[in-house]
Structure formats: structure tokens, C-alpha cells
């Protein structure tokens, strides 16, 4: 598995991640890290970062972690806890670690933390393995 190709593929192909200002920075087997650069567009009506933005960061990290085994996946379910509010623009990280890799189902633990290691949200995501391989090089060449 060429993880750099997978990272490039994810960053180029996921329009919603681009819209959300999220990039995948690291993938290895059963692990992934994404970054969210928070801007004023991520804030909600009570002037904290919207839960949807943090959810998307965790889903991105979880999806990248599930992708690390070489197949496309889709999200089946998730359960997220919002632990601390983010009140100012900063960079935060979504980190995913596999809890269980089954034949069809992959369960990933995710969290959102900053440079100081403060945790803002935690989520458990369940993915279904679509058994369809990536062809990052071929697809990137077609762009």
C-alpha cells in the first residue's frame, strides 16, 4: 500500500473535506491523522466551532484509517461526544485508530485534539468494507 498516494487521492477527491478545510496528513495501517484549520466560517450561533465541523474531522480521520487496509469504505454508524468547546480559530487534529478490523466491518476510535493534547471530541465510527480497491495513481492521472 502506497500511503502517500492514498493521502494525495483523499485530499484531491473529497470535495466536502476541501470545503471544510480538512486535509489528511498521515496514514499508516490502522492509523490516520487529519488537520482542520479553523476559520470564522466554522463557528456556530453560540460562537464556538460547530459540532458538524468536528464530526467531519473525526469521520475524515476514521475513513482514512479504514482506507489504510487498501479498500474503499462507507460509514455505517457513528457515536460522538463533544467534550470541550473551541472558542477561537486554531489548528486541531483528527486522529483515528482501528479498534477492530473484521472481514466486512471496521470499527475506528477517533478524537479531536490540539497541539497541547487537549481533547475536544471523541467518536466511534463503524465502516463497511466495499471490497473495491483504490487505484490512486490511475485516477490521479485521469484528473
Amino acid at each position, binding site marked *: 500500500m502506497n500511503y502517500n498516494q492514498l493521502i494525495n*487521492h*483523499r485530499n484531491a*477527491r*473529497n*470535495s*466536502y*473535506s*476541501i*470545503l*471544510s478545510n480538512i486535509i489528511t496528513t498521515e496514514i499508516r495501517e490502522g492509523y490516520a491523522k487529519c488537520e482542520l484549520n479553523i476559520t*470564522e*466560517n*466554522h*463557528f*456556530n*450561533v*453560540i460562537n*464556538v466551532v*460547530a*459540532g*458538524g*465541523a468536528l*464530526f*467531519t474531522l473525526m*469521520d*475524515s480521520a476514521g475513513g482514512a484509517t479504514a482506507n489504510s487496509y487498501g479498500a*474503499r469504505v*462507507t*460509514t*455505517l*454508524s*457513528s*457515536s*460522538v*461526544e*463533544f467534550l470541550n*468547546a473551541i472558542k477561537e480559530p486554531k489548528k486541531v487534529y483528527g486522529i483515528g485508530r482501528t479498534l477492530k478490523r473484521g472481514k466486512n466491518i471496521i470499527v475506528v476510535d477517533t478524537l479531536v485534539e490540539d497541539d497541547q493534547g487537549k481533547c475536544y471530541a471523541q467518536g466511534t465510527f463503524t465502516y463497511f468494507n*466495499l471490497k473495491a480497491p483504490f487505484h490512486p495513481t490511475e485516477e490521479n492521472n485521469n484528473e
Partner: protein
Amino acid sequence: MDYNKLKDYLGNQDHFIKEIGIEIDSIREGFAQTRLIHTDRHRNANGVVNGGALYTLADFTGVCAASSYGYRITTLNGTVNYLKPVRMNDKVIAVGRTTKYGNRIINITVDLFNDDGVIFMQSDLLFYNLGIKLELNEYEL
């Protein structure tokens, strides 16, 4: 509670909702209906609408329903089941209903479906009442 004013307030003051393209159809006590106006920007690597966009729609719909009691609230947690992928030509409507309104905790269920009632996603969300009254009279459009 002036629900039209609440609708204007939530729809116009939330930067993230405007960025994502969510519109509020209606709010009344313990109830809200919204919709996602999705474009190619909402597409994920599998070519369907990203799950994060759908969660954002569910969460905001829950915020609208939980705010209908007149207090500022914040999301504590959310549990989501994705039942069917949303294709790029599907319309997406979200309906949120209160299942329990407590002193501090509000439970809301939010379903996402299309015009034909086909369900895309089901979710349960918990909100915390911050105990601060929404002062909509101070809000100017």
C-alpha cells in the same frame, strides 16, 4: 416564542450553516424541519454526499428544535445510523422532534429523508440547556 424570529436568527447568525448550505423550513415547539442544498462541493471520494454534511444537517436541525424552548443550547453527543447513500440528485429534508425535554437535557431524534419518505439517516442527539435565555429582540436582521 416568536418562531419566525428564531428561524431568522438561527439561519442568519450561524456562519457554518451558511457555509454548508442548510436552510430552515419551519420551527415550532419541540420540532424543526430543514433541508440541505447540496452541490458538487458536498461530494465525498465515493461520489455521494459526505456523511459529515449529513451529520451537520442533523445536528443543526436538533439545535433548531432544542432552541424552540427559548434557551441557548449546546450539543453533548450524537449517535447516527446511515441507512442509504444520498446521491447528488437526491433532495434531503431533515425533521427533528423532541423525545424528552428535561431541566437541563433535551433529547432530540432527527431523521433525514427525501420527498418520497425514503430514509437516508436516523440520529439521536443530546443537547444541554445553557440556562441563558435567547434574547431575540436584541437581534437585528
